[in-house]
């Protein structure tokens, strides 16, 4: 009984503190804001290789690769084969997009132009499928022949534009293009395994 009386006295004496505590509990309530919208700068969802016939600007061969969910688990889809005309010379350029947000498609190609001293394209293909460049590309050896049409500020090749002359007719050959991001790494001798990969795509190549 004595205990009970003490308790009451106690509560009365320190009621102010209990009130402060109560206010603290009630005072905390959450905000309801979502993270702000971000321009996804890292992800490529659509890469198109564009081969334009140097002799006929209307002869354009497009080969698409698509990863519609970006970093989601859906497999990359290489949608098209590359089919070139035997003996013809083409200029290869790219369309590189992030279309994760269909209402706000980002063109990443422009960003690569801005940072061309940090980027280089490398190629690997079935041996001698092209008459120019000959060989099998510059994956195995960075100095192997590739016809780069563009140079960065340090006079190192970039590869946003390259020139290709198709060899004789063949089907089921392979053509692999890789874009490496090489900040502070790119030199006249840096190769396909230096830096980090922005894209790495392998297409079926037919020449007819």
């Amino acid at each position, binding site marked *: 009984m004595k205990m009970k009386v*003490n*308790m009451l006295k*106690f509560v009365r004496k320190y009621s102010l*503190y209990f009130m402060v*505590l109560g206010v*603290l*509990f009630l005072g*905390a*309530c*959450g*905000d*309801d*804001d*979502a*993270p*702000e*919208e*971000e*321009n*996804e*700068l*890292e*992800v*490529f*969802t659509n*890469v198109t290789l564009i081969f334009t016939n140097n002799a006929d600007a209307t002869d354009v061969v497009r080969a698409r*690769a698509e*990863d519609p*969910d*970006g*970093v*989601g*688990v*859906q*497999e*990359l889809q290489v949608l098209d084969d590359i089919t070139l005309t035997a003996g013809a010379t083409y200029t290869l350029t790219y369309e590189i997009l992030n279309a*994760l*947000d*269909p209402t*706000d498609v980002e063109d990443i190609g422009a*960003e690569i132009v801005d*940072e061309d001293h940090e980027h280089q394209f490398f190629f690997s293909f079935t041996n001698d499928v092209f008459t120019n460049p000959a060989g099998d590309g510059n994956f195995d050896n960075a100095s192997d022949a590739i016809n780069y049409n563009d140079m960065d500020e340090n006079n190192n090749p970039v590869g946003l534009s390259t020139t290709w002359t198709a060899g004789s007719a063949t089907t089921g050959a392979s053509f692999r293009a890789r874009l490496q*991001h090489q*900040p502070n790494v790119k030199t006249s001798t840096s190769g396909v*395994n230096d830096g*980090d*990969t*922005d*894209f*790495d*795509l392998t297409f079926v190549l037919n020449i007819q």
Partner: protein
Amino acid sequence: MQSQSPCTYKIQGTILDAETKQPIPFVTVRIKDTELGTVADENGKFLLDKLCKKEYTLLCSSIGYKPVAHHHDSYHEKPVIYMAPSSSDLEGVVVEGETITGDVKSLAGDRIDKAELAAKTTTSLAAAVGDIQGVTFTSVGANVQVPVIHGLYGNRILVVNNGVKHGFQNWGSDHAPEIDITSADNVSVLKGASGVRYGPEALGGAVVVEGHSLDLSQKLHGNISSGYQTNGRGYHANANLGAGNEKFSYHLGAAYRRIGDRSAPDYVLTNTGMIERSASLGMRYHLPQWDFKVYYSYVNQDLGLLRSSVADSGDLFARSLSASEPIIIRDFSYTINEPRQNSTHHLGTLAIDWYSDLGKLKFLISQQINQRDEFDVRRNADLPIIDLDLNTSNARLEWYHPVWNGLEGIIGLQYFYQNNDNNPGTGTTPFIPNYNTNRISLFAIESLEKGKNTFEFGVRLDHEHNSVRGRETNQDIFRNKYSFTNVTASIGLVREISNDWSFRSNLGSAWRTPNMAELYSFGQHGFKLQFGLWRYYSNDEGELRTDRVLTEDDGITEPEKGYKWINELSYQKDGNSLTLTAYSHYIENFIFDRPVAVIGTIRGPMPVFIYDQANAVFTGLDFTYKHAFKENLKGTLGMSYLWSQNVSKDEPLINQPPLNINAELSWKTSSIAGLDESKLTMQTSYTFRQFQAPRTVSVEQLINREVIITPESEIFDFRDAPDGYFLANVMWQWSKGRFGGQLEVRNILNTSYRDYLNQMRYFADELGRNVLITLNYKF
């Protein structure tokens, strides 16, 4: 002056040696500014009676020990006074009626005191507690280390700093608690399920860091310490200062630490440097029956992660796994480049204690601000890829009630609020959503002493509400609100079998809601693609899909519930001691991270990890035997073994600590080179290969579709568990007057090895030989 009416208050205390924890006989105990005093008996017990009920300062002195002054107020339990031998580096401390394992007597635990911490100033909190049997740490390189207790880590281990749950981005294994151990007075590890006392996240145990004790009636004291380490060319300095009169005391501390790239025996571990800055301030104001304490601490860390751990294509990941050396090795540098983490943590607390015949009331409020930026190797490396602000508020009221019919205990009310916000400008979809968590909890722990047995029981009610707002990669907003209510309970027994043997047993339950990363993570984090429980599902064909955000209505996610039974048998006599801890832990809906696939992306094939849920069992044994061959020659033999299994699918779990055996020999002398004391310690350990690891499926096998994996397939890992390894360390500690120091060689054999619990084991060896020198001045 004795008054006419005789006073009846008495102080009963015990005096122990701070080093051996054995009683010191015949210590003189005086009450300051009076003629009163007594001498302790041969068991270190003393009694001062016929006192008036007020506050006293006790002065204890004995030849061969440093004197101790203790400000005693009448509402505390019987004081236990630890006196430090005058030759040792220790300081005396007084413990007032608190057990070694905090408020839960039946929980097995271990404590690292200030002297032991002083020998570990260059290590992380996790590495400092990692020497305790049954405790280890999981890491992401040399800078990010997270404590593991009996196979559990992350937010199953509660880290309590200065009385409050450390509020940090406690997800994944790549976020270490931002706590500087030079600011700690002692660290305790509770190995049992401590959910009843500490709340939902203490499912696997708790690491309790206590700051400076802010003792009253202490003259100005402090220390300055500085050191250098060869591996990483690291240097550090810290200073502590404190003083107290009969009413007011304070403590100030600051520390700085910088380390460059560490080295494995054969190569530089490029980009593993770190910088840590910290400061703390504590103040106490004491009135009869009242204690007011404020505490503030600040920690800022800049941590580099191994450059070669970032492989943004599966091709590079595969090459890294099969390479004997990291892919990128550069010359030594202090520079910290991407990938790196920068975090700042502020903690402020206000604690008010009130003592009376009605028991002790403890009120505490705290606020924490945790800011974390992570920078990854990517096109926009100058922008953080993760930029989070986490605000945590705690308030609690605890009543340590007076003994009632033999019952002694605590009743408490706790409130917890956390607000996580993504800062804009990362140029990537947030990996972790914005969220708010509100939790209110009520608990009671009671113990009853009956003869040689102490029975203990506890119960706790938690109600938690979460509000989540995130973005999908197409920038659509998703929202969710969900609540959990849960009751946890524990029962325990402590039995004094004889003077030398004692036994404690605790059966505890705990629960935990899945954390935000476990539910919502989506996309690239480090070298892998990671998907939370609510971000993936299996379609009708059994294929993994990530095209929608799930909710609790999909019925796949339940909170984790754990039941842990832990028993500890201990023996202590004549400097010899034996501790045997056996435990079994069943966790329903255990959440774990595992590899599930390698998928083609525009960048090439990438490894995919998912969070998964299953029922799991963890059972094991910790063993420590300490033997005093002579007064000054002591040995320790230890072992910890854990067996764990996913019992839903009858397959192994991943990233579980392997069997470890360790031995230590220490020799102490006062006869070297005129030093007051020298102590030479040799530590050896053998860590076995984890023979319970999942099967190995290589990245190439997955890329070439030689092995097809679905979410239902048996668990696998990308690389075999590393081989067992033997490590040896040697340490020499000395003291002379106010000076002290330490010379330590870690990994003295320069062994190349990989630690199964280090995520960097895929890419690089652990640190090679490291020589550390520390100098200390005390006043």
